[in-house]
């Protein structure tokens, strides 16, 4: 099962190495790991997607919490969260195909961010399923390059909203 774990960490050198090293040393697999600043200059947030059974993920959570510069750890599984990926994808786009590609881009509420002579670069964000679906529809045109951020997530305060 996929778990999104959010860790608030001190913004110190070596913290990422410590977290990554712990995962490697204990044989846990990381699906994605995103690090970014928070509103507090001395804290960063790591969002880590892990796949494993409950026992393994419980260990991941505890082992993370044990790392001294890790301030707080939350496992979002089973909780209402907004989870998002951002992707840049370049696809082969000869001029005659562009209208249908652009209509597809609109359907996914994505954006064309760069136009080349034979290709388009598209920015798309959303839940991972949407990113995957977009990649599926791009595939027939020929995907030239993909860059993805990995998942970031935040718990919902309200009870309803976009998935």
């Amino acid at each position, binding site marked *: 099962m996929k778990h999104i774990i959010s860790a608030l*960490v001190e913004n110190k050198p*070596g913290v990422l*190495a410590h977290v990554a090293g712990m995962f490697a040393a204990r044989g846990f697999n990381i699906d994605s790991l995103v690090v970014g600043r928070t509103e507090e200059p001395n804290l960063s947030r790591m969002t880590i997607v892990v796949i494993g059974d409950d026992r393994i993920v419980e*260990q991941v959570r*505890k082992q993370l919490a044990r790392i001294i*510069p890790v*301030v707080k750890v939350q496992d979002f599984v089973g909780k209402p969260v907004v989870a998002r990926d951002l992707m840049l994808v370049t696809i082969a786009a000869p001029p005659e195909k562009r209208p249908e590609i652009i209509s597809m881009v609109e359907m996914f509420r994505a954006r064309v961010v760069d136009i080349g002579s034979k290709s388009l670069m598209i920015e798309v964000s959303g839940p991972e399923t949407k990113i995957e679906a977009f990649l599926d529809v791009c595939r027939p045109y020929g995907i030239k390059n993909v860059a993805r951020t990995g998942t970031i997530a935040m718990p919902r305060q309200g009870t309803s909203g976009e998935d």
Partner: protein
Amino acid sequence: MPTKAKPAAPAAETSTLKTGAQIVVDTLVDLGVDTMFGYTGGVVLPLFDKLYDAPIRVIIPRHEQGGCHMADAYARASGRVGVVVATSGPGACNLTTGLGTAMMDSIPLVAITGQVRTDLIGNDAFQEADTTGITRPVTKYNSIVKDIKDLERTVREAFFIASTGRPGPVLIDLPVDISVGKYKCNGKAQIDLPGYHIRAKGHARQISMAAEEINKSERPVLYVGGGVVSGNASEELRAFADKAHLPVAMTLLGLGSYDQRRPESLDMLGMHGSAYANYAVQECDLLIAVGARFDDRVTGKVATFAPHAKVIHIDVDPSSISKNVHVDIPVVGDAKHILPELTNEVEHRERGPWFAKIAEWKKKHPFRYSRQGTVIKPQYVIDEICRQTKNDALITTGVGQNQMWTAQFYKFIRPRQLISSGGLGTMGFGLPAAIGVQIARPDATVIDIDGDHSFNMTLTELATAVQYELPIKVCILNNGYMGMVRQWQELFYGKRYSCSYLKNPNYADVARALGAVGITVDKKEEVPKAIEQMLAEKKPCVVDFRVEREENVWPMVPAGKSLSDMDGLGILESMA
């Protein structure tokens, strides 16, 4: 707290301009450090220069690994934080085995390493190593000081982290330009660790649930690990075990937390544990683990470990709970706080049939060795040491057969009496450990019961013992083999003794050449007298016991088997 109370701060709010090295030394003194272990070198010259007239005794090992083991054993014997200093590059690299040893056994240790100038870091400078990178997995925490403003706080944090919660080694990497730089330091830096939380008190409801299970239990076993020793909770453990009336099995590192001469002691459990401890664990209906971590050498095959038991686990480290074995009632916190609360809630129960069964196992399957023949049995040497020292010596060990026989045949009565590398299993630990213990406890009888191969690894430290005139005793159970490896080769590799044999020197000659006393014993009847002489020696003394070459440690739970699947019980019975 393992560190001494600090002296009163100067009355006036004075900040003096100090070098980084001076800040380190002043902070160490303020934290109560009066002894440390250190090997000098290029980038730690400023630090050693300030140590030259500091009120701190610096013990110089012959190798940084030895120094680290000494500091570790000093901490184990005294309950204080051990301190070791090494230079950059090779010095720091040589610490890693010692740090790993301390990490696995949760020993409070602070290591300070020199580092090249900050502007050279990353340039592959002379004697540069990525020390924080190399030591991250073998430390509880480490950090490099890149700004002298952070230095005093970092040192204070290192001691706090090392000695609290589940203790462990902490490393500070100190670039030489920080050591020689100057800063106005007031000596009052506050620690700032927003991510470090220690839960001391246990959850009251969990404690009540645990007490309820204990009161219901017909066949309980108390399983005690090193956490009770490091948490200074042996008194509390004894009160708890006595009131509830529980049999007590101990891990290697737990030995000494409960007096082994008492009938409730099941001695050590696990791979080379007692048959009665292992049977009791496999048949118990309630297992109460305190400060133990369900290591594979203790559990054997996890799937069949304590199959009828509910499990209560008291531990200060939440990540230990349900890591290897599912725990029904976890109580996270300090054993010293939790055990008295639990003691209040438990009732005394006789549990006659259970203790009768244990007594039967004890009678049928004691630790035994053959008293026949003329060759010296290694177990006999330990038995005799135990007898002559009246269970009261401080014992260090190497790793392997020597260590397991010591655990089986020396009956420990007090915590911090057995100093041994359990988790990492570091051969070569025994001799430097004996030095660290003797430094911590100058008046105690300190004996390293070692194997020849373990002793070979760090024997250079004998020169350290001579230099500091330490009356340590080294008993080498010399079988000419890497004994435990040879045992596995005999049992599982068709007696193909691949690379488990070394040609050893004459250890008595080596000892004498280094300025110690050397004794060789090759006759069984000479054993008691040799031990007597050794105990009377005021100089470091090495006794080379030429023991039975192919003796095995029994019983033995082969790796991956259930605890009750012990080999060697028949062999032991035939020795009766």
